C-alpha cells in the first residue's frame, strides 16, 4: 500500500548493497532483528568438535547480546588465531540455549579442507596505507558471496562445500524460526589452517568513498513505470479499505484517506505521509540524449547546456529578424512602428521558473544574460513583431498597481444615499454606514455616541473626517465596532467613516484626505516583549556591581 511510508518505518533494505536477500526476508519479521549480514567462504571449515576446541560461533539472539565481543579485523584475527584460549565470552554465549543441537549437526557435516588460496591481508606485507586496511575489511571481496535463505535463494556456488554450507544454514534458519532467530555468524576466516566463521557488518557507506558526489539520484524509465503500477494498485487497495469504489477514487479521496489512516501532527505539510502519483514525487528528468547510433538529438548537445544555449540562439535569431525588418522599413523610408509593449504590469520569469522551463540548472550570469537579451529585443523599435515569443517569458503582476476603486453611492428604501466603509486600528475592527441628509446623529453598536464614548478625545476623533470636509452636521452614521480599547475603537471608526465619505466627495478632496492621513491604516501595534528585557524596550536596571 503506502510503500513509501512503510519502507521509511522499516529497515532500508536496498541500502545494504550485496545483502538484500537475507536481510530482505528478515526485515519483514515483526520482531526487530538487527543481525545484518552473513558471509561464508565457500572453502570454509568449521572445526570438528573432536579435534579442535569448540568453534567460535556467535549466536546473535537478543539474549546473547550482552555477551557479544567487538568485531576484529582479519589481520587481528590472523594474529590471534593461534591463541590457545578462545574467548570465554563466546564460549559462554555458545553454551546458552538455542541452536546448539543444529550446530552440532553442522559440525559433523562441515568438515571441509582448508582453502587453497591465501586469504588477502593475512600475514602479507603490503606497502599500503593503513586506511586501506580499515576499508578493505569492509569490502565485499573479503566477504565472499552471500548464501541466500529459503525465501530468496542466493547465488549458487560451484563448490560442493558451499552448497553443503548453504543447506546447513537453511536448516539452521528454519530451525531458528522467525522469532528471535539466531543466525550463525561466521568468525573471520583468516589464512590457511583451521577456518573460523566471522560476522561482518557492512554498508554501502563503507564501500563508497563519496556518495554525495555522485549527484542526484537518477531514475530509469522502467523504475518510474513500476512505481506508477504500484501506485495504481495501492490506490485500489486503499479504496477497498475505505469501503469506496476503486474506479472513482480521486486524488482528494486518497489524501483524505491517508490523513485519516496516518494522522500526523507535524507542522510541515511536506513531512506528513503522502501518497501521490510518481510523476509528482520524482522530479522530471532528462531522458537519454542520443539515439541508437550514438548521435545526440540536439545540435548543441556538446555544449553541456543545450536548452539554455538553444534558447539564446533562438532569441538572437528573433533579434536579427527584427533588425532585418527595421532595415527593410528604413530602405523603404517608412517610419518604424511606434507602439510599444507596456511593461508596467508584467515581470520577467524568475531564475527558478526558467530552470523549470528548461529542465536545466542555470547560473546567475546565464540568467542575467538571457534577460538582458530579452530586454534588448523589447527595446528595439520594431520589437512588437516578436510579441508572441516575448510573452512566453513574461508574467503579469496582479493587483499591485491597480487603482483603488471608490464604490458608488447606494440607496436604501427611503431613497437616502448611503455608503459603507471598514476600518481597523490595533485590534479593533469597525464597519460604518454614513447616510446623507442627516443631522449629525452617530450610533455605535446601537448606543448613542455620547454614552459609548464619554471621553471628548474619542468623540473628536470621530468628528475629524467630517470637520475636514466641512460636512459636520450633514451626515448620520451607524457604526459597529469590536475588539481593542476605547481609543483604538475610536480610531477604527474614524478610518471607516473616512473611507465611506470618499463616495460623497470629489477626487480632489479624496486626495486631500489621503494627504491628511485620514485614509491610511495606522500600522502601530503593541511591540512584543523580548527576553532579557523587562518590556519591549525597557531593559532591566543596570547595576554597576
Amino acid at each position, binding site marked *: 500500500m503506502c510503500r513509501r511510508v512503510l519502507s521509511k518505518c522499516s529497515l532500508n533494505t536496498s541500502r545494504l548493497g550485496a545483502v538484500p536477500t537475507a536481510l530482505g526476508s528478515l526485515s519483514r519479521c515483526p520482531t526487530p532483528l538487527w543481525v545484518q549480514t552473513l558471509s561464508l567462504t565457500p572453502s570454509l571449515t568449521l572445526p570438528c568438535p573432536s579435534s579442535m576446541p569448540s568453534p567460535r560461533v556467535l549466536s546473535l539472539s537478543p539474549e546473547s547480546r550482552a555477551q557479544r565481543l567487538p568485531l576484529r579485523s582479519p589481520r587481528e584475527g590472523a594474529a590471534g588465531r593461534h591463541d590457545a584460549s578462545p574467548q570465554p565470552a563466546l564460549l559462554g554465549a555458545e553454551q546458552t540455549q538455542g541452536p546448539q543441537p543444529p550446530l552440532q549437526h553442522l559440525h559433523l557435516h562441515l568438515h571441509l579442507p582448508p582453502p587453497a588460496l591465501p586469504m588477502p591481508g593475512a600475514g602479507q606485507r603490503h606497502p599500503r596505507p593503513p586506511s586501506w586496511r580499515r576499508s578493505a575489511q569492509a569490502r565485499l571481496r573479503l566477504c565472499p558471496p552471500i548464501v541466500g535463505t529459503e525465501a530468496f535463494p542466493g547465488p549458487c556456488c560451484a563448490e560442493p562445500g558451499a552448497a553443503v554450507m548453504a543447506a546447513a544454514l537453511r536448516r539452521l534458519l528454519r530451525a531458528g524460526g522467525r522469532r528471535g532467530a539466531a543466525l550463525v555468524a561466521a568468525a573471520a576466516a583468516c589464512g590457511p589452517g583451521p577456518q573460523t566463521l566471522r560476522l561482518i557488518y557492512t554498508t554501502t557507506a563503507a564501500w563508497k568513498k563519496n556518495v554525495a558526489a555522485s549527484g542526484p539520484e537518477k531514475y530509469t524509465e522502467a523504475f518510474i513505470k513500476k512505481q506508477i503500477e504500484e501506485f495504481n494498485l495501492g490506490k485500489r487497495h486503499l479504496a477497498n479499505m475505505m469501503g469506496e469504489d476503486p474506479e472513482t477514487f480521486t486524488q482528494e479521496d486518497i489524501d483524505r484517506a491517508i490523513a485519516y489512516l496516518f494522522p500526523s501532527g507535524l507542522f510541515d505539510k511536506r513531512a506528513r505521509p503522502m501518497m501521490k502519483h510518481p510523476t509528482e514525487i520524482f522530479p522530471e528528468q532528462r531522458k*537519454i*540524449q*542520443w539515439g541508437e*547510433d*550514438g*548521435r*545526440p538529438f540536439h*545540435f*548543441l*548537445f*556538446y*555544449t*553541456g*547546456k543545450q536548452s539554455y*544555449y538553444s534558447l539564446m*540562439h533562438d532569441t*538572437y*535569431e528573433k533579434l*536579427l529578424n527584427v533588425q532585418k525588418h527595421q532595415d527593410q522599413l528604413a530602405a523603404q523610408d517608412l517610419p518604424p512602428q511606434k507602439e510599444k509593449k507596456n511593461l508596467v504590469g508584467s515581470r520577467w520569469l524568475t531564475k527558478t521558473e526558467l530552470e523549470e522551463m528548461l529542465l536545466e540548472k542555470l547560473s546567475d550570469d546565464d540568467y542575467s544574460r538571457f534577460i538582458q537579451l530579452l530586454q534588448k529585443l523589447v527595446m528595439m523599435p520594431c520589437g512588437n513583431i516578436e510579441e508572441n515569443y516575448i510573452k512566453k517569458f513574461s508574467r503579469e503582476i496582479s493587483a499591485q498597481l491597480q487603482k483603488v476603486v471608490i464604490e458608488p453611492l447606494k440607496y436604501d428604501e427611503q431613497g437616502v444615499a448611503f455608503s459603507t466603509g471598514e476600518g481597523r486600528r490595533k485590534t479593533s475592527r469597525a464597519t460604518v454606514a454614513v447616510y446623507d441628509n442627516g443631522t449629525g446623529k452617530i450610533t455605535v453598536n446601537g448606543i448613542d455616541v455620547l454614552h459609548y464614548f464619554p471621553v471628548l478625545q474619542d468623540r473628536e476623533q470621530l468628528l475629524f473626517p467630517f470637520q475636514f470636509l466641512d460636512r459636520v452636521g450633514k451626515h448620520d452614521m451607524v457604526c459597529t465596532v469590536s475588539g481593542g480599547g476605547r481609543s483604538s475603537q475610536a480610531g477604527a471608526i474614524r478610518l471607516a467613516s473616512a473611507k465611506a465619505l470618499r463616495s460623497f466627495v470629489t477626487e480632489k478632496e479624496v486626495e486631500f484626505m489621503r494627504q491628511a492621513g485620514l485614509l491610511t491604516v495606522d500600522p502601530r501595534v503593541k511591540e512584543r516583549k523580548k527576553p532579557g528585557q523587562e518590556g519591549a524596550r525597557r531593559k532591566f536596571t543596570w547595576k554597576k556591581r
Partner: protein
Amino acid sequence: TEPCPAVRPLSFSPRSRPPALQQPPGPGAVLPSPGPFPLSRAAGDGLLSEPLGHPDFFNVKELFSMKDLFSARVHLGHKKGCRHRFMEPYIFGCRLDQDIIDLDQTMDHLQLALNFTAHIAYRKGIILFVSRNRQFCHLVESTARECGEYAHTRYWQGGLLTNAHIQFGAGVRLPDLIIFLSSLNNVFEPHVAIRDAAKMNIPTVGVVDTNCNPCLITYPIPGNDDSPTAMELYCKLFKMTIIRAKDYRKQREVFHKLQSKEEGGCARPACASRGCRAP
C-alpha cells in the same frame, strides 16, 4: 609619386618551408570505421572502401576557386607584430605591415581538409564545429544545424572531451571530427579543444590565421578568420561538402540494399518457389 611598396616576401630558410604535401592514402589503405557501430561485412566491403580509391572522390575541388578565396578576403592576415612563428611557412609576404597568406597553399590545404570532412561525413561520423568568435557564433550554429551536425560556440567547460562520461553520462559518443572556424578563444589563446582533441585522438580541421598556432591541428587551413565574408565562405564550403557526402552515402546504401536483394534472389532460385523469406 612614390611607387607603392610591393609585397615583401618573408625571408625563410629552406628548412622552414613546408614539406611537400603528402599524397592522400592510396587505394590499399583503409581508414578505421567510426564508433562502436560497425556495418555488416557484406556492406562494408563495397560501401566504405569505395571512396578510398580516389584522392578526391567527392570532387571538393570544384566547390571553390582561387578567385573565390581572394574575393572573400581569405588572404588577409593580421599585422606583422601578431605573427606566429609557426605560421611563417604559410605566409606569402608582408605589405604595409599586414601579412598576406599564400593562397596556393591555402587551396591545397583546403582541398585536403574538405576531402577529409567529406569522408568523415560519408562514414556517418559526428562533426563538431567550434568557434569562439562572438561575431560569428550564430552563423556557425546555424550552419551546423542545417547540415545535421553539432556546434559549440560557447564557453568550453573543461572536461567536455576528457571527462565526457561523467559530464554527459555513460555511453556518450564523442565527436569524430572537430572543425575550428577560429582556433583562438576570447583571450587570444589557443582553444582548449585543440589540445583535448589531440589527447582523445580526435582529428581536427582548423582555420589558422597568422596569429594562431597550427601545431596540433591535423588539417590546418591557413586563412583569415576575422572577416565576415571569409567566415561565410568557410561555412558554405563545409556545409556543401557534408551534405554532398551524406547524400552520396544515402544513395550508395540504397544501391547496396537493392544489389544485395538481387543477389539474394539470384543465389537461391529454388527457394523462390517455396516462398523463402531471406532478403
